[in-house]
């Protein structure tokens, strides 16, 4: 997760994890089916409101947003130059806004016209990416990883071992990250300069860390397996640590709004073309 889960007592944190999961699925689904940027912007605002109700730390997303803005700007430009949608409401999607290579460039200008339809479609794609990213981040921030595992182990055809593997893997990610940072510092302390040399040399410097990293990871996994064995892992076929969650009124409200919203958007899109470009 971009922003790590934080235990808080906000109305969103308190929701049943299943309700939060259904909201996430519904939000992603709606963002996929809608292609109208105005509608997507509305969905984005709603997602931000829900995040804010969960006291989501927006400043921590700054770096990610900047990176995403650059990427989506490129996507928008490419779409504008290459794609022409059959817009439902747009009168003249072929109208050229500007050209990437203006007329004053000798020999090749003017070229690469950016059309309004393509640009709007690009903006729509960018908004989809933003909405999905924000929704996932908010979900990760307001739902503890153990609640996520609880959701996974409730799914049909999913063994508890699978849920455990997900949980164990996510737990070891920060451990491995810390090890990598220490290995890098240890190399720097022995005179390795990661900022100099050719690309091949830099890759070589980095790969020397991989052997100790993998060896340490294997050793850690070995000890962990021994510790798991010592705590009866695999003794029972069923994992019995299933929390008896009970849906309350706010949870049902969230489920109804999410499922209802998704159903309504599918209906309106199919019948009235609402949400379409």
């Amino acid at each position, binding site marked *: 997760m971009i922003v790590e889960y934080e235990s808080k007592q906000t109305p969103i944190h308190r929701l049943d994890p299943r309700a939060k999961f259904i909201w996430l699925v519904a939000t992603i689904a709606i963002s996929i089916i809608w292609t109208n940027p105005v509608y997507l912007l509305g969905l984005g605002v709603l997602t931000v409101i829900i995040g804010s109700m969960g006291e989501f730390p927006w400043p921590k997303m700054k770096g990610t947003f900047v990176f995403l803005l650059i990427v989506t700007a490129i996507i928008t430009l490419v779409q504008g130059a290459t794609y022409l949608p059959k817009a439902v409401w747009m009168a003249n999607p072929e109208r050229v806004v500007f050209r990437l290579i203006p007329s004053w460039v000798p020999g090749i200008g003017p070229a690469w016209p950016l059309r309004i339809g393509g640009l709007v479609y690009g903006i729509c794609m960018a908004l989809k990416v933003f909405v999905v990213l924000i929704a996932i981040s908010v979900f990760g921030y307001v739902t503890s990883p153990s609640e996520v595992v609880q959701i996974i182990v409730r799914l049909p055809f999913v063994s508890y071992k699978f849920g455990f593997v997900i949980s164990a893997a996510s*737990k070891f990610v920060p451990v491995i990250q810390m090890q990598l940072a220490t290995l890098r510092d240890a190399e*720097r302390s022995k005179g390795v300069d990661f900022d100099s040399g050719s690309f091949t040399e830099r890759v070589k410097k980095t790969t020397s860390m991989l052997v*100790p990293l993998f060896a340490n990871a294997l050793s*850690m996994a070995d*000890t*962990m397996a021994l510790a798991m064995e010592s705590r009866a892992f695999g003794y029972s076929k069923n994992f019995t*640590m299933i929390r008896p969650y009970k849906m309350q009124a706010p949870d049902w409200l969230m489920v109804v709004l999410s499922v209802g919203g998704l159903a309504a958007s599918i209906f309106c899109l199919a019948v009235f073309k609402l949400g379409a470009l």
Partner: protein
Amino acid sequence: MFHLEPTIVSLKNVTFSYKGSKRQALKGVSLDVKQGECVAILGPTGAGKSTLACVINGTVPRFIEGSLTGEVVVDGRIPEEVGTAQMASRVGLVFGDPDTQLFGMTVEEDVAFGPANLGFGYDIIMERVTRAIEDMRLQGLEQRAPHRLSGGQKQATAIAGVYSMLPKIMVLDEPTSMLDPEGKARVFSIIRDLNKSLGMTIILIEQEVDDILELADRVFVMKSGEFVLGGTPDEVFASVDKLKEVGIRVPSVVEFGYLIGADKIPFSVDEAVATVKDGAWGKAVDEASHGITPKDHAREGDTASLSAQHRATPTDETTPVIEAIDVEFSYPMGVKALDGANLTVYPGEFVALVGQNGAGKTTLTRHFNGLLRPSAGDIRLFGKSVLNEPTANLCSVVGYVFQNPDEQLFSDTVEDEMRFGPMNIGMDKDRMEEAVRDILVDIGLDKYKQVWPRYLTKGERQRLALASVVAMDPEVLIVDEPTTGLDWLESLQILEYLEKLRREKGKTVLIVTHDMNIVSLYAKRVVVMANGRVIGEGTPREVFSKPDLMEQAYLRRPQIADLSDTLWGEVLLTPREAADRLKRTSTTNREVVAE
């Protein structure tokens, strides 16, 4: 009386060899443990202690393969036949590194892991979890992620995770080896409760001899896969010579009792004080000279001799090798690790940086070779600010040895590892080869030149990590926690080598440590840190004479300092010093009486 209790663990003539190894990890070990007993097992690294623990819970040979012979019966069952998972509800096994034995996303979930695996219903699981969390004093941390706990809290969680399975026997394999003094105290207090209040049978494998003396009903000492000593603590610790020969650190009050010829060997400071006050001691005996005995380097650190012997007197003319001036540093998540730290280190000093985990010790030292840059303040080497110098340049002046050797060894052979640093800094080839050769001989690894470093023991890997930095010939050596996870002999080898480098080559040594016994033996100056600042410094005697300072930094001074302070109002650092002091006092008293 525990001897009336039934035997709960019975090992008869147990021998074990790991798969693919000809060496016997256990050689005819026999052990009977009574229900409710606390048995401590001591021994150097590689003695077979952990293998023994795994035999008791059945992971050897079912999970860790090999050839096991002899008879093992635990709580009326044969672990090899029953299987580890079945045995888990009878024998709990706790390891040294808490990070590899915490599986849950939260403390509560981790403690529930064992009972959930055993197939209990949710209500029973939560009942056990609540009890375990309460008994292990983890209330309020139920929803905390394990990686956000302190070392002591993590280990308490690991113990709670085993305890929630309600085993009759708890085997703890060096449970405090990774912890700071505060964490150690917490874990020992929990073990005491488990045994004395809850009646659980405890088999405790430890290197921390001071704490087990009052806890253990019986003590066994292992070496090379067999017991070489065993009996009540009185019986075992009466054999001071033998313990030293094996490489066990003899608790300082015990050694003091031995040196003064005490009628009964004292196990605590109070007992030692009573022994002296009651006159229950006789003719002092000479200190045994078996094994490696640390020289009394710390005595050189007395205020009288400090400046003369170990560094140029820090007058205004002496240029310090390291200066940290009002250094501030915050980690990206906003944690302020340094808050105006000041430190000055002079050439040829042996300085120990002490303080509890999170005090800022490692963060501060990582500024000295440019791994970290201060957000405010200045770092100077030999009087020159090095804030803009890259680590690649600084590392030939300040060598940095990290805590875990496995995170700093990169090469395929010991010899190549030694060359790694010198080659990076562009050392002359002839000089490099000479340094590699000489240092490997000095540190006792020359016979392993072509061996993959991972095949060495932990102590050897730690020595190699140090040697590979020494090969770069830096003026200053910073060693972060040089003794973590090592036995006493291995610790002394590292410290002796550092002291030799300081004494013979004039290197400046700065160690970060929690081990006050090491501090009192080797450090010439102690710098105490708390909350990102230096809160006090002085010779070991001076620092140990300030109980307020020690308390503020959550440090515990060595037993011998407590003893001498109680008896004579002065801090002494070694049992020999205390014994000599007693002898002098006694002679003077006799002379006064004679007059």
